[in-house]
């Protein structure tokens, strides 16, 4: 009996030691931008740039974290309020640029929220050139904001079929009552 206990204890200790160093997942919300998501690790906010033929040159807001060699990134271009009727075109261009010259593994409908509240977008998975990893993304255009969620499994992680990218991109919500209680409010830097 004692030997059995010892074996179980040793097994549990081994399991804990070999488990990946995953950080806890937190919920993040932006009432100003009208969406929420979940991600592991420490989310940092930066400002970036984007340029498309239809979209033109734009500044972006990037929320980014890295955990267990998976990079999680939410990019928001919040400056299309005057061009919402062009939303389908701007969204299509963003999706096209994402997969251009890459090997596409998945390209399917994305739908968030049920019934009349549905927001339709696109979900894609691509392999990055030069064995740089695998990227899963979701694209939505809501209230003049072009929102992209991207999760990249880096080669150092190597588990390219990890469920974590799917968990990340499917965590987005636009009906904010669906957001988990205790979500951290995101900073929204001023962009052009």
């Amino acid at each position, binding site marked *: 009996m004692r030997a059995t206990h010892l074996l179980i204890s040793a097994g549990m200790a081994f399991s804990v030691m070999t488990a990946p160093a995953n950080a806890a997942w937190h919920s993040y919300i932006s009432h100003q931008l009208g969406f929420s998501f979940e991600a592991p690790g420490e989310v940092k906010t930066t400002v970036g740039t984007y340029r498309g033929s239809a979209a033109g040159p734009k500044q972006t807001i990037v929320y980014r974290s890295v955990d267990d060699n998976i990079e999680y990134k939410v990019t928001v271009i919040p400056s299309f309020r005057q061009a919402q009727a062009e*939303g389908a*075109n701007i969204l*299509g261009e963003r*999706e096209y640029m994402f997969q251009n010259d890459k090997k596409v593994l998945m390209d399917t*409908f994305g739908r968030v929220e049920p019934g009349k509240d549905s927001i339709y977008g696109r979900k894609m998975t691509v392999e990055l050139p030069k064995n740089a990893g695998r990227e899963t993304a979701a694209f939505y255009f809501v209230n003049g904001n072009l929102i992209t969620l991207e999760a990249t499994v880096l080669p150092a992680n190597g588990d390219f079929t990890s469920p974590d990218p799917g968990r990340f991109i499917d965590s987005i919500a636009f009906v904010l009552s669906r957001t988990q209680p205790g979500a951290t409010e995101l900073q929204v830097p001023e962009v052009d």
Partner: protein
Amino acid sequence: MRVLTITALAGATFLATMAPASAAAWKGYISHPLGFAFAAPGELKVEKGTYQAAVGGKHDMIVFRSVDDNIEYKAIVIDMTTQANQAATLMGEAQYIFQDRKKVLMDTFGRVDGKFGRKLTIDLPNNGGRTTAAFYFVNGRIVSLQATVLPANGDYDTPEMGRFIDSITFYTVRAANDATELTVPK
């Protein structure tokens, strides 16, 4: 020499007999008020309809339709101007409804005159044929071209579907010089 001529004539007659009955010429059509042009064979008729969707709601729809060689050609215009600020979601919803519960054979980008859209091919249920469609959102309207090869035609790989959906242009200067102006019902 005479034998050769007779053989050649016989061959030509045989080929003419075997050719499909897709005799209708392709013609260019244009709508300046709607801002697009396309080409289609056969006699084009205009119908009015209603589009209904969960997010999009109920909207008027114009259908320009012709049938040639058991292929149905449809240019569908859905007026979404009152909800144009939801363009991306309305487009996604229309594409989703088109392929819902059908076997999808193709789902890829469409790009015409700087407009990004989507092209899909589906097999219709109960061996009802094969439809290739393109969807674009332009000037507050969903514009969709759809070509359906009916079972009576049976050539599901015909290039005519692609020719139809790829004939669309949003630059009216690119329309055929002799394009017929479409009648837009009130």
